[in-house]
């Protein structure tokens, strides 16, 4: 494969392009951090260099509520507050609950569609596939009404309800993997007298750990990033998730001169969980894209 043993001009240019792409990918995040450690009062004058003249952590302290309101104002705050740990907890509950419950229940559903035989299976599965094509906003409007009618606005149950039990995508995705498991494995267990439940838990799930983790990661990323639904049904202080909180924080800061240093500190904090995900599951995440790609 090594047809270029010594660096040719083309190869150097190619590497330069690739490195440029990495820089473009990461530079905005660096700039976010750079702004977050700039004193708010100095931003108007000090916003061009690669590092601020007087780096500070005050912006993080004030979005985390570690300093008093007065001190925050003095540091360039708009008076808007970000009760970060509360919103972080809400985001973690929202993401965690949906990821775990949805993945498990959809695994059960996907298995039934892949392996069990029952009346109306293909019709029902067809309905699920059709639902894949429907843009979410169409069901979002009536779902909002439903949550409102149930009196679930600004509650956890209202927040998680629509996607807790299933998404058509998750069922569809896992069914494809269950179809790929050799039947012989299950047959042996069936002959030994094991029931479907035992087979599912003891044989099938352990064999599909990879796809399950892949799906769970994807679901976690999507749910963590979700904005419109949490903003609509749970904007209240007690149930507000991080993304909604950032949006509301922006709205509360004056239009003419947004509190950029505070906003960037909050934004930087909202990225931390994502970076942890990359650190712990980097290979898995990257491979997961390969997986979904193979389906095509």
């Amino acid at each position, binding site marked *: 494969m090594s047809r270029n043993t010594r660096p040719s001009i*083309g190869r150097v240019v*190619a590497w330069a392009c*690739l490195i440029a*792409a990495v820089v473009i*990918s*990461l530079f*905005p*995040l660096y*700039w*976010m951090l750079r*702004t977050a450690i700039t004193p708010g009062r100095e931003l108007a004058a000090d916003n061009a260099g690669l590092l601020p003249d007087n780096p500070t952590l005050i912006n993080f302290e004030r979005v985390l509520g570690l300093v008093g309101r007065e001190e925050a104002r003095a540091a360039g705050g708009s008076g808007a507050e970000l009760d970060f740990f509360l919103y972080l907890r809400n985001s973690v509950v929202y993401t965690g609950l949906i990821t775990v419950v949805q993945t498990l229940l*959809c695994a*059960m*559903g996907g298995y*039934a569609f892949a392996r069990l*035989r*029952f009346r109306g*299976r293909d019709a029902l599965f067809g*309905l699920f596939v059709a639902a894949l094509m*429907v*843009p*979410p*906003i*169409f069901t979002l*409007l009536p*779902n*909002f*009404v*439903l949550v409102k009618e149930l009196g679930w606005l600004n509650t956890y149950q209202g927040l998680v309800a629509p996607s807790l*039990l*299933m998404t*058509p995508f998750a*069922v569809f995705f896992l069914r494809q993997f269950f179809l*790929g498991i050799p039947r012989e494995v299950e047959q042996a267990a069936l002959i030994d007298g094991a029931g*479907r*439940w035992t087979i*599912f838990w003891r044989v099938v799930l352990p064999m599909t750990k990879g796809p399950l983790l892949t799906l769970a990661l994807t679901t976690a990323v999507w749910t*963590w*990033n979700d*904005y*419109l639904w949490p903003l609509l049904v749970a904007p209240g202080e007690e149930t507000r998730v991080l*993304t909604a909180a*950032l*949006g509301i924080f*922006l709205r509360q800061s004056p239009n003419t001169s947004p509190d*950029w240093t505070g*906003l*960037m500190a909050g*934004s930087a904090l*909202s*990225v931390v969980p*994502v970076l942890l995900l*990359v650190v712990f599951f*980097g290979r898995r*995440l*990257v491979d997961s*894209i390969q997986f979904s*790609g*193979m389906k*095509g």
Partner: protein
Amino acid sequence: MTAMTLAKSATRARARRRGHGDGRTALGFLAPVFLGFAVFYLYPAVRGAWYSLTDWNLLSEPRFVGLDNYATLVGDPLFWNSLKVTAYYVVLTVGMQILGGLLLAALLHRLTRSLVLRSLLLVPWLVPSVTTALLWMWLLDANLGFFNHLLTAAGLDNQGFLTSPDLALPSVATINAWSGTGYTALLLYAGMLLVPPQIYEAAAIDGTGEVRTFLSVTLPLIRPILAFALVVSLISSFQLFDTVAVTTKGGPVNATRVIYFYIYEQAFTHFKMGYASALALSLVLVLGALTFVQMRLLRASTSDLT
């Protein structure tokens, strides 16, 4: 694909032999998923269709108005504008994502197998869209933004990237190209890995250049995955909401009022739930037609490998 088909025919054959199904067991496995589907997908779909035939402000009782909402929609310049803006956005952002993704994937494929490099390229895709929007709003700020520093340094005038009617939509498209290109690149890269290395060796022996090899070997062989990446990118682009909601709120002068944002405004700013539902149902039909066409294209575009 073959494994799937085999497994399927095996299911049928076995079921025929046994002569009865697993109805009871299936009920246990499917009950939670079915409950979720019935309550949060089927029921709202029926309700949505019904709302689209009513005049309803969320407070009083819905009043049946027949097809009035659809008549309004056909004559609503803002609806047509939102479709036009959405189409413009989709073309821009999907174009950037696919072209950028292809270039990056080809570079990765020919240069390195580094996992770290691929993870770094994926980072923008993992950043929450609200954070991405805030971050770029700051980078593109008309006064203090980084990009205007670059322009000033180059001796050019400051630009209101998100406040000028001409630049706002391309700016929003660029923001989402930033967040989606790495993901697209990794998808396409995965496709390129499936091409047997011998083909490249043959091309090298023939003395074919890199660009030529890419155009006449790689590109045709990854057609199915390219189509898949296109569909993924198209579908997500049609649902643009977060970036617009945070940065431009549809402005300036409707320049970024995409269909998703328009529906949201009708429902939750103007409380016209009936009209919003009619808009949403129309979007379902438009996307349904598009998906159908895409499916046809997907099926037509089988790789030359198989």
